[in-house]
C-alpha cells in the first residue's frame, strides 16, 4: 500500500483531537460521561442521551473482527486487490470500519483477534488499520 494514493480523510471539527492523537500512534475514543459508554463515530453530542459531556479516552486498540470481506477489485490506487475490509469491534464495545493487513487476505476470519497498526498519511496524521493480534 503506497501512502501517497490513499484517500486522506477530511478532519471534522469535532474529531480534531482524534486525528491529532494519531500523530503519536494513540487511538482515542469519545466517551459519554453521563452514560459511561463509548461513542463511535465522533460527534458533538451523545447519541443516547443527547448530552454534550463527551470526553476523549485512549483505546487499547484491540478487538475482534466482527465482519469482513475480501475486495477483489481495488476501489482506490492505494490498495492492491485482494485486500480485506473489516468491521472491527474494539474491546471497548464500538465498531469501526478498517482494513486488516499484515497477513494473507484469505486468512482473516470473523472472530479473529486484531490490534491497531498505523499507516502514515501525507500530513503527519496516521490512519488506523488492524493486524492479527497473535
Amino acid at each position, binding site marked *: 500500500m503506497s501512502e501517497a494514493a490513499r484517500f486522506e*480523510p477530511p*478532519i471534522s471539527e469535532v474529531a480534531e483531537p482524534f486525528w491529532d492523537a494519531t500523530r503519536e500512534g494513540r487511538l482515542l475514543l469519545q466517551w459519554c460521561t453521563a452514560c459511561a459508554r463509548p461513542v463511535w*463515530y465522533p460527534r458533538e453530542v451523545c447519541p443516547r442521551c443527547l448530552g454534550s459531556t463527551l470526553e476523549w479516552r485512549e483505546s487499547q486498540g484491540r478487538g475482534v473482527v466482527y*465482519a469482513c470481506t*475480501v*475486495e477483489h*477489485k481495488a476501489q482506490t490506487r*492505494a490498495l492492491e486487490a485482494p485486500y480485506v475490509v473489516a*468491521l472491527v469491534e474494539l474491546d471497548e464495545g464500538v465498531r469501526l*470500519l478498517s482494513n486488516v493487513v499484515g497477513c494473507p487476505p484469505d486468512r482473516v476470519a470473523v472472530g479473529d483477534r486484531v490490534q491497531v497498526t498505523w499507516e502514515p498519511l501525507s500530513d503527519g496524521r496516521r490512519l488506523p488499520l488492524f493486524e492479527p493480534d497473535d
Partner: protein
Amino acid sequence: MSMRGRAAIVGVADAVSPTGELATHGRALEARVIREALADAGLTLADVDGVCHGQSSVGLAEYLGIHPRFTESTNTGGSSYEIHVEHAAAALAAGLCEVVIGVYASTPRSDRRHGRSREFQRPPGPNPMVEWELPYGMRMPMGPYALAASRHMAEFGTTSEQLAQIAVSTRAWAGLNPRARHREPITVEDVLASPMQSSPLHLLDCCLVTDGAGAFVMTTAERARALPKPPVYVLGAATCHDHSMISQMPDLTVTPGAVSGANAFRQAGVKPSDVDVLMGYDSFTITALLHLEDLGFCAKGEGGPFVEEGRTGPGGLLPMNTNGGGLSYTHPGQYGMFLIVESARQLRGEAGPRQVRGAEIAVAHGSGMVLSVMSTLVLGTEGALS
C-alpha cells in the same frame, strides 16, 4: 385511524428491455411510464393532485404542468418507492388528495455508453462517511452487503451454496418472463464459478445494472372501485431505518425490516403464511435472505436452509421475486418501484406464464442504502379485504 384498505394502487407501468438499455431517458422516460400507468388506471393527468418522486416532486410537477396538493420527495435509496406508497396511502386516507402518481426512471447502462455523466458526487466538506469509511476502499454498494453475508455465515453457518440458490431460483422466474434481462437457467455451480467480487459475494450474487423505469397511480378505495381494473389495496405499510453507514448497523444479521415487516403485517391483519407472493428487494442474494428472516417467513438464521431446494422459485411454497428480481429482471440502481409493479400485476392476475395462481396477498419489501431503510407494503385484492 387504520389505513387498511383505504387506498389502492390502480395503475402501474414499467419500461425495461432484454438488452438492458432503453432509447429514452430522464423526464421523457418518466413521462412515458406515467402516461402508461395513467392509461392502465383509466385516468388522465387532469385527475392527478398528488406527486411522488425520489429526487424532486416539484421539478416533476412543473415539467408535467400540474399543481399537486400532495407532494412527496423522500429519498431513502431503493426503498423510496415503498415509502411513497405508504405516505400516499396515508394522505389519501386522510383526504389530502384524490389521485397520486409516483415515478422512477434511471438509465445507468445507456448513460455509460453515451457518455452521459453520472459521476458519484462526493458531498462537500467532512461528513461521517467520507471521514470514517471512504479511506478503506470498501466497494460500494456491495461491500456492506458482503460484510453482512460474512457475519451471517459466521453466526449461523449459512453457505455460499445457499446464497447461490436464491440467484438460481430467481433466474428460474426470469425464464418465465419474456421481458427479463437474463433468462437462461443457471445452477449453483454457475454462481460459485462466477468471479468473486467482495467475498463471499460472486458476480451472480449481485444485481444487474440496467436501464429501467416504472410508475404507479393510486387513489381512494371508493374511487378505485369505479375504475376499470381490479384495485390493489394497501392493507399495511410501515418503514424503519436504523443506520446510514454500515459501521453503525446495530446487528449485521438483523435489518430494520424486522420492525417494518411486523408493523405492516399487524396493520394488514395478516401473517407471513398468508402471503402468496413476496417481492423482496434483491440487490444481492444476502439481501433477499435477510428479508425472509426479518419478515418472519423463517426464523433468524434459518434463511439458508429455507431457500434450499428452490422453495422461493417457480412451483415452490413461497414464490419470491416472480418477475426475475433485481438479480435477473432489471436493476437501474433503485429497484423498489419494480416490486410494486410486479405485486400489482400478480394480484390482478396479469403475470402471464409466471402468474401465481389465485394470488390475493403480495408483499413488496423495499431496502434502501446499505440495509439501512426498510419499507414494507402488504397489498391485497378485493377478496383479501374482507
